[in-house]
């Protein structure tokens, strides 16, 4: 299908973007890479009156280390993250997750900030941001503020961004010695949205786990932390027995939402499979 008609504006400054959002409210949508937005417009799931194309704001591009964090500008593409040596060094979880995002042509256009602001519970970047304990940098009429990933994802496609705020960057802490991570997805075909996906992060000292985060994608209306199972893992040595116990704990802890083809029971089972695989695969 073709998108319904809309007006288009391409601002030259973030301040102009903010005033357009204030003026047009819900009638306006921000266009970054457009890889989710344009699909939903073509299917007429969404019919905004105005698209505000932020693609000309070069200040929102780029990857750098700043104040002990890896800061990734909102307009950085998935492909740029996938190929970045800085990301591989300081946030290798992102390097591991990037190839799972759709397909190359989509990764060439889709953006880090667009994915996080869209907040699809089946998408990789919201899951990774939460697993790394990162933060969103938002700019509004009163200036910039940081929102922790733990507070950012609030519901189905709903975030803590105010209607007149723009997500300008996402930050994650730099990987330290002893930090470990694991990531995988179960999907019918490469590049499809995952039936269930998982990011694990934490520290490991002489095999003993600490500060573990388990974040699930595709099971709830937001990326979901499994806090009870995280607590069960901390302070223990990850062996096969622990992986089996953790998988059982996770299946008891979560209450997955079904999708068109997969029941809650299927997702519950697969979440346990993933956790067990990731814990066994990354054991020192």
């Amino acid at each position, binding site marked *: *299908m*073709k*998108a*319904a*008609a*809309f*007006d*288009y504006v*391409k601002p030259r400054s973030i301040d102009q973007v903010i005033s357009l959002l204030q003026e047009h409210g819900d009638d306006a949508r921000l*266009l970054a890479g*457009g*890889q989710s937005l*344009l*699909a939903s*417009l*073509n*299917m007429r799931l969404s019919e905004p009156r105005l*698209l505000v*194309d932020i*693609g000309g704001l070069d200040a929102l591009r780029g990857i750098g280390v700043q104040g002990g964090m890896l800061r990734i500008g909102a307009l950085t593409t998935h*492909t740029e993250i996938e190929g970045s040596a800085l990301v591989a060094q300081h946030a290798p979880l992102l390097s591991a997750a990037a*190839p799972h995002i*759709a*397909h*190359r*042509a*989509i990764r*060439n*256009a889709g953006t880090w900030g667009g994915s996080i602001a869209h907040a699809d519970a089946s998408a990789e970047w919201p899951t990774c941001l939460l697993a790394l304990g990162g933060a969103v940098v938002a700019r509004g009429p009163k200036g910039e503020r940081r929102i922790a990933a733990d507070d950012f994802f609030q519901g189905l496609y709903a975030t803590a961004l105010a209607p007149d705020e723009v997500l300008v960057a996402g930050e994650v802490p730099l990987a330290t010695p002893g930090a470990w991570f694991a990531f995988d997805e179960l999907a019918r*075909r*490469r*590049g499809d949205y995952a039936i269930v996906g998982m990011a694990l992060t934490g520290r490991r000292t002489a095999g003993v786990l600490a500060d573990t985060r388990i974040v699930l994608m595709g099971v709830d209306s937001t990326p979901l932390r499994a806090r009870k199972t995280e607590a069960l893992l901390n302070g223990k040595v990850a062996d096969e027995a622990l992986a089996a116990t953790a998988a059982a704990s996770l299946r008891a802890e979560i209450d997955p939402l079904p999708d068109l083809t997969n029941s809650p029971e299927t997702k519950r089972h697969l979440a346990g499979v993933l956790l067990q695989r990731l814990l066994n695969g990354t054991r020192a």
Partner: protein
Amino acid sequence: MADLYPIRVTVNGELHQCSVAPRTHLVDFVRDTLGLKGSHLGCEHGVCGACTVEFNGRTVRGCLTLAVQADGGTVNTIEGLSRTGVIRDLQDAFVQRNALQCGFCTSGMLMAAKELVEQRPDANRAEVREWISGNYCRCTGYHAIVDAICDVLQQRKAAAGRMEASS
């Protein structure tokens, strides 16, 4: 009705200045406004890959890119790449390996294949399959397409080796 928006875009080396409706996506623009019918429109929501074109040197989904977003940029379609000869080896290999039947997916498939052989010259068979997973083909079962791309990877590697040896 939304106003038309003026754009300047270089397509296959030629600068075009046009006015487009903001909702017009890039593939409708190249097909209907410029008359370049080699890029195809399949699903129109980013799944099938038939509309893949090159924008500023990288493949994109033509149905998930607006023509207005291409303002000031450079677009290459299958017509341009065919004319310049940069994918001649891929096209020959597709014919030789019988990697197309109806041809609907072929222009998008060649776009993906071009980016692959340029960006991942050492790709193995599994990586080729993964790379083209965003382009649907309903005729060939993919096997012949993977064969053709692997042939070209090997040919280009051999040619690069010869150039190095003779320098």
